[in-house]
């Protein structure tokens, strides 16, 4: 501080020696906005003199002046030239619109007086200004603080306020400043709830560009560009972005002794002060994607084209080919899911390599590279890829298609395959999914629902009828058996009678001496009796039959041998002379006795 004073004193002294032409210039905007602060700057090429400000209009609220001096001294060949200047800055806020005249200011030195030219200024009513908030009319000491509040602002600019879910919002964080900033200390982003943030590479801010907004000059700079992908529908608020900037600020000593504009020059200081600014909160309306979503929609929102390419369509077995599916356009490329391709079995598929090439804000290409290795020979059909995206411009789902390919695989699969899989005899069948089985084709063998038999009365009538029929058959049969039995009984009852009749005839024949005829009559009587008693028809009548029938009736063997003897005797006597055998009378008596015995046994 001391050295400055000494230097100044030296310059003050030396300035006396050179007289020079004095000029006083004024720099003021041609127009300003009501309520907005603007600057009027007076510059005079002298340091020693008295500046008398003009009389400002009563509607002007004036702060200042900020006074600064500079001096440039050169020695050239022993000649010293000195250029000095004084700058006074007034900060003015006009409260009434209209055209105003700024009266000349005067600068008085010991030798002369100069006046600045007269300036006209137009105060307009339009209040659309970028500065955020203003503080005025405060004390002098707080004036410095107040000015940074309005001179420095941070804005988050978005390209649209209404989007579909997934549709990217391009956002720019921009700094507006009218004061010197030495640096940015801290940039604090909110958590962007409901959005996915993707930063776009932004060159680091080195210097502010000049931009005039509403007639006011600002130093502007883009701090960061980024894309916001809304994830959930609804009105989503973006919280303020906060920034701490290092602001160069003039501080003054509030000492009553030095409370004079003159001293301000010497005892004021420029210091760097952190200052916080924040953007205004924003609300973005996120519309939900229309339902129902198509099955092959994988989250891509934007305007896209789809293309596919295959590295080779004819390939040797086990040689890799590459299928590239490229999605090109603008939209949420980073969130576009993998397309579903049903590769034919026999081609080994690896997970795709996904590359994104961005050519600007939210546009570029996203490519899916599938490495395919055919493991079998033959012709394989890679189906056309269908990929549905939502186009916010058309506000509907658009299905994109890329061509399919036919791959011909040649070569001998066995020779190569044995090498890596020498000890694997086969592989388990891979089950890919589960679904119901397909419908049956054909005519369906349709038939009308038939009437059910078990509920029909006539069905049960069948059973009754069958039962009745069986009963009838049984009855008839019984009747017949009974009748047959009656015939046998009759013969049985008549047997003894007819036998006695024949025996009586034989007796009378014996008396007349006709022995042969008598014998025949005895035989007939015996045979007839046996036939009637045993119910044997005449045609089947033999000795054996009679005996077996008698045996079943348990008549006793003696009786049977007796019958046999009598029968033999009668037969014998028919062919031989009577004298040789038994007398016919004795045979007759035997026969009578035999028939009587049989009648008793067989009855």
């Amino acid at each position, binding site marked *: 501080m001391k050295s400055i004073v000494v230097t100044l004193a030296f310059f003050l002294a030396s300035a006396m020696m050179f007289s020079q032409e004095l000029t006083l210039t004024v720099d003021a905007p041609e127009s300003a906005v009501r309520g907005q602060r603007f600057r009027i700057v007076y510059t005079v090429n002298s340091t020693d003199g008295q500046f008398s400000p003009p009389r400002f209009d009563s509607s002007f609220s004036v702060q200042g002046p900020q006074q600064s001096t500079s001096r440039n001294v050169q020695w050239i060949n022993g000649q010293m030239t000195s250029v000095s200047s004084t700058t006074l800055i007034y900060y003015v806020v006009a409260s009434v619109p209209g055209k105003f005249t700024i009266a000349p200011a005067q600068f008085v030195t010991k030798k002369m007086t100069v006046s600045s030219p007269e300036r006209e200024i137009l105060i307009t009513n339009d209040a659309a200004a970028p500065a955020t908030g203003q503080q005025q009319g405060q004390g002098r000491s707080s004036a410095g603080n107040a000015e940074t509040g309005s001179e420095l602002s941070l804005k988050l600019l978005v390209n649209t306020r209404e989007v579909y879910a997934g549709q990217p919002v391009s956002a720019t964080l921009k700094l507006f400043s009218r004061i010197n900033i030495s640096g940015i200390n801290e940039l604090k982003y909110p958590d962007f709830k409901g959005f996915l943030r993707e930063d776009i590479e932004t060159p680091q801010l080195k210097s502010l560009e000049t931009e005039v907004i509403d007639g006011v000059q600002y130093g502007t700079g883009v701090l960061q560009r980024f894309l916001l992908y809304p994830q959930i529908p609804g009105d989503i608020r973006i919280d303020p972005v906060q920034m701490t900037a290092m602001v160069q600020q003039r501080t003054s000593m509030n000492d009553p002794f030095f409370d004079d504009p003159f001293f301000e020059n010497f005892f004021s200081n420029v210091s760097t002060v952190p200052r916080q600014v924040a953007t205004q909160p924003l609300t973005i309306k996120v519309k939900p994607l229309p339902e129902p979503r198509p099955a092959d929609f994988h989250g891509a929102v934007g305007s896209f084209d789809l293309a596919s390419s295959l590295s080779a369509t004819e390939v040797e077995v086990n040689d890799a080919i590459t299928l590239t599916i490229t999605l090109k356009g603008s939209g949420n490329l980073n969130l576009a899911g993998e397309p579903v391709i049903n590769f034919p079995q026999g081609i080994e598929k690896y997970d795709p390599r996904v590359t994104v090439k961005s050519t600007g804000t939210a546009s570029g290409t996203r490519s899916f590279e599938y490495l395919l290795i055919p493991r079998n020979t033959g012709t394989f059909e890679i189906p056309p890829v269908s990929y549905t995206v939502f186009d916010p411009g058309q506000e509907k789902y658009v299905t994109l298609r890329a061509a399919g390919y036919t791959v011909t695989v040649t070569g001998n699969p066995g020779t190569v395959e044995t090498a890596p899989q020498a000890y694997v005899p086969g592989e388990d069948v891979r089950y890919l999914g589960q679904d119901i089985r397909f*419908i049956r084709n054909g005519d369906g063998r349709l038939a009308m629902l038939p009437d059910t038999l078990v509920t029909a009365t006539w069905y049960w009538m*069948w059973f009754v009828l069958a039962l009745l029929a069986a009963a009838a058959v049984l009855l008839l*049969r019984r009747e017949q058996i009974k009748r047959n039995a009656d015939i046998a009984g009759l013969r049985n009852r008549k047997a003894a009678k007819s036998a006695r009749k024949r025996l009586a005839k034989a007796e009378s024949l014996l008396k007349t001496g006709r022995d042969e005829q008598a014998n025949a009559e005895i035989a007939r009587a015996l045979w007839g009796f046996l036939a009637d008693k045993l119910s044997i028809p005449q045609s089947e009548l033999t000795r054996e039959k009679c005996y077996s029938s008698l045996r079943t009736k348990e008549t006793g063997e003696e009786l049977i041998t007796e019958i046999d003897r009598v029968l033999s005797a009668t037969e014998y006597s028919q062919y031989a002379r009577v004298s040789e055998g038994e007398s016919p009378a004795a045979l007759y008596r035997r026969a009578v006795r035999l028939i009587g015995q049989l009648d008793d046994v067989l009855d």
Partner: protein
Amino acid sequence: MQRLILIFIVLISGVLTAASQSPEERYSQAGNLYSSGDYSGAAAIYRQLYDEGYRSEDLLYNAGNAFYKSGDNASAILFYERAKLLAPADEDIDYNLQIAGSKITDRFETVPELFFVRWFDFISLLTTTNIWAVLAFAMFALALLLGVIFLTRARAKGRLLSFWLALAAMVLSVVMLSLALRNNSLVNHNKNAVITCSIVTGRSAPGESGTELFVLHSGTRVRVEQELGLYFEVQLPDGNKGWIRADCMEKI
């Protein structure tokens, strides 16, 4: 007026074209719709054929498939169960029914039926009730014939054999008759029903006043115990009973 006539003509022609198509044509048309992905269209045609009284295991199986694909899981189960009654040994029906059944919300600890009941039901479903009825009558007639032979041919050699054969035929006839009756009650008067409402409450009494006992979801199989107006008393697979609105279920 003109519009009315137009509507009338359209309706008439619609009815005529529907009537002019034979059921086989409509059946194959539904198959084409299914193949092209119009599952609900195919299901509507199958359903119509069923309502008109046409039956075949293929029709019911396809109807189940169409309903499953169009998202109506309850109807799919209903038709698979119906198809199973016509073809108890069909493996495709079992498979699809199992897949459709895996999407049912309600799970029960079910007690399996006694094995001989299951076998008896299975045998009874092997053919139709009418074939069982005819066979039963044929057996009955055979038994009578053998009985008559046994009773009349007193001295025939196979007399004893004919007696045993007659007895066997009579037993067979009784068994077949009961199979015919069982088949009829399973196929035409099945007491099981499938819940078709997505959610329905079982109450302790018919009407909306009864205490709420349980909640069922679509696709669950219940057994109808009683019918009273608009409410059926059903028994759940775990044995619990409750009253449910009749329009929330369809009998198998």
